[in-house]
Structure formats: structure tokens, C-alpha cells
């Protein structure tokens, strides 16, 4: 899993910092950590990013993260959701893995491992 480039979209800095730590512990490289949907989209639009995966919170300060998920899907980049919502409508994304919050390190590791297989 070493060297994989992972993007994070998470509106709470505290939580984002932990996810960054966990990914770094897994040997991944955090390639962009964003607190707003627009910033993440701008990063993806830039075209310079080469991502191996992404961890997306669903509700980003009241905005839904789905446009980012669609952009990632269009690029063929695998991703997982990390959310505190027990059951959230995810029309079109029913097959995407959901990590619940608080985040279980083992589940995150499995998800990152899954990115490798998909790539």
C-alpha cells in the first residue's frame, strides 16, 4: 500500500487530521485534503492530480459530496465514503463502501487495500 496517493474530503479539520495520520501510517501519501466540495472539484479539474483513491465525507458543511464522487468515478479513481449518517440516500452510489464514524483503522486499511486491487 506504500506510496499510494489518496485524496481526503472532510469538513471537520480535527477528523481530517486524524485520517491524514492514519493514511500516512499506512504508507500512503495524502494528495490533497479539502474541507469544501468546490476546492476538491477544482483540484480534480486541474488535471495534474494522479490519485489512487479517495476518502470522502458525505455532508461537507451542508453540501453533498456527490459531485466529487462523480468526478472521481469519471476518472476511474476508486473511493470510499466516511460518514456519521447512519443511513443516507446515496442514489447511484449504493455499491460504494461506507466507513462509519468514528473511523475504524482496520476498515480504513481494508478500504485502501481495495483501492490497490481496483487500480
Amino acid at each position: 500500500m506504500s506510496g499510494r496517493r489518496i485524496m481526503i474530503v472532510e469538513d471537520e479539520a480535527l477528523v481530517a487530521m486524524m485520517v491524514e495520520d492514519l493514511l500516512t501510517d499506512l504508507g500512503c501519501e495524502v494528495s490533497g485534503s479539502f474541507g469544501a466540495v468546490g476546492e476538491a472539484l477544482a483540484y480534480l479539474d486541474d488535471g495534474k492530480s494522479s490519485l489512487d483513491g479517495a476518502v470522502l465525507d458525505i455532508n461537507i458543511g451542508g453540501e453533498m459530496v456527490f459531485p466529487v464522487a462523480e468526478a472521481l468515478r469519471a476518472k476511474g479513481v476508486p473511493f470510499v465514503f466516511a460518514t456519521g449518517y447512519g443511513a443516507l440516500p446515496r442514489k447511484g452510489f449504493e455499491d460504494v463502501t461506507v466507513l462509519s464514524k468514528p473511523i475504524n483503522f482496520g476498515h480504513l486499511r481494508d478500504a485502501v487495500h481495495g483501492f490497490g486491487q481496483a487500480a
Partner: protein
Amino acid sequence: MLDMAEHDLSDGEDDSALLTLVETIEELSATRTIDEVAAVVRSSARRISGADGVAFVLRDNDCCWYLDEDAIGPLWKGKRFPLTACISGWSMLNRQTVVIPDIYQDDRIPHDAYRPTFVKSLVMTPVRTRDPIAALGAYWAKEHTPPPEIVAKLQVMARATAAALESGRLHASLNKELERRTFLMRELDHRVKNTLASVQSIASQTLRTAASPQAFNESFESRLLALSQAHELLTKQAWGKAHLREILAAAMRPFGGLEDGRFVVEGPPIEITPEAAVAVHMTLHELIVNAAKYGALSVPTGSVSVAWRIEDAGGLHPTFALEWRERGGPPVAPPEPKDEGFGSRLIRRGLSRDLGGAAVLDFAPEGLTFTFRAPLSQRLAAA
């Protein structure tokens, strides 16, 4: 014997009419919408009154709205008339039942509207007498005075209709309340889980740099309390926006509060959304703890000034600029990068991440200075 037989027969008729009325009341009590009420009234009112036609009229502001009817010939279904220009309006405005044996002898009747119809006599009774919301009309093709028991039955039906409309309204508001509760429970679940994730983050990051279990415990507890204060402040605002000055006051409280003479705060009112307020609170907490442990607040002669302003206010790019300046403390030395803990990481990155700005920590020997600049946004705005 004959008398008895006649008596039995009329009793039987009464019983069957009474049963129809009771059944209608039961049907009305099971309705949930105005259309369902109208359907019951249409199917039963004529049977109960023995009239040649019935109409169910709703009050729609200043109009009578002939919602539905069941009659031997067409009446006014779907039409609206001013309250003052029809007998259903008169009945609703005067809150009383009206019996008209010959409509063409009564000035309250708009004769032109009746001429195309079969109607010669009528009974009109308001629904919900104290404040009518509808009316029930029964019409006959002959001139006659409808018997009092027919009028009474129509009035009973009107009362049952009023109760049905009220209960439908109650049902709708109850449903709305239940939906709201479900929504709130889901939001609560979401917030609790996010908060637990924040606690998880604080714990794991505090652990990474803690020198000993005691040091971990001290820092973790202090951060947990700061998080708790941040939440208390948000709850007080009903999870609405928080004022920067209030956040600062809450974060400062465990260290003597803003009244402590060593603390100078200055700036215009600034509002911060709940999502960002937690990070602002935690960042200020880390700055204060650092100042109390190693900086200007660790000695009686030190002071901290926190000043903020809006630059280019009203311009194209209004910017929020904050400066935290410590003076009079012990000489400051920048920490080794490997020692960078949760605090300085949060101070450097937390705010800029959540508010889309830039944070700079300057470890000048005469005192630490923290500057933060961010564009005004939906998350951070002048109050």
C-alpha cells in the same frame, strides 16, 4: 293493532335513518383530507336529508367555493362566489342555519344563479359554528318548509364534518411533527458520531506526542473540555452561528476569562458557522494553553492582544485578518519540527483548512505571533 303496525313502521324508518347518520359520522371520523370529507358528504347527505340535491361548500377567503355536489340536476360544482353574494356565504358569515321555503321570495338568494337550476327551497347550515370554514346545503325542487328533524340531521352532519376537518388538520400537523422528530433524531445521530470522531482524533493525536501517560491525560482532558465548551456554545445558539468574541471568551474561561487584565481583545462582530466554530474554538484553546504553559500568560508581566479587522470591507475581496500577539513572556524559541504536536498542527492548518485562509506562526524571541487571513465567506462573515 293497526296503530301499532304504523308505529312500528315509522320507528323502523327512524332507526334506519339514525343508523345512516351514525355510519356517516363514523365514515367522517375516518377521513384525513378535505377530498375524503367531500366524498362522504356527497354520498350521504342526500340520503340522510331526503333532499333532491346537496352541496358541500368551502370558505376560501372571501369566497364560497362549491367543492362538490350530488343532485338531480347540476348546481354550481367548482364555482366560486363572493361570500356576500350567496346564501352559503350568508350562513357562514352569520354563523347560523337558514331555512328558505321559497327561494324566489327571499332577497338573500341571488336569483339569477338559481334560475338555471331545479331549486325551489333549501336548508343551508354552517360547518364549525364558532368560526365557519364550510357549509352544507340541501335543495328541493318544490316549495316547502323542510321539517325540523331534517334540519337537525343536517346540523348533526355539519358538526361531524367540522370535527372531521379539525381532526384532518390535527393529523397533518401531527405527521409534520413526527417527520421533524425523525429528522432531528437523524441529525443528532450524525452530530454525535462526528463529535465522537473528533474525540477519536484528539485522543490519537494527543497520544502521538505525549511524553507520558500523565502528560497525555492532562492534554487530552483539557482538549476534551474545550470541545465540550465549543458544543455548549453552539447549543446555546441553537446550532446557529457563533460570534468570534463569544468563542474567545469561552476558550479563555478556564484561564481567568477575558476579564484577566493580561488579555486585550479588539475587533468588529464576526459570525462563524457551527462547522467552522469548533475548529476556531479548538485553535484558540491551543494558543491559550501554549501561552499559559510557555508563553506570555506563563508570567504575571506578560500580555496577549487579539485584534481582528475586515480589510477591503465592501470591496471585491473583503478579507478577515486576525493577529494574536504575545508580549512580556519568557524568550521564545521555535520548536523542533519533530516536536510539532497536535496544537501547533491545528493552529497552522485547522483554521486555514476550515475557513480557506492562511495561518502563520512566528516564534520571534520577544513573543509568539499568530496571524490568520481568510476571505469573508458564508462560513465567516461580518455580523
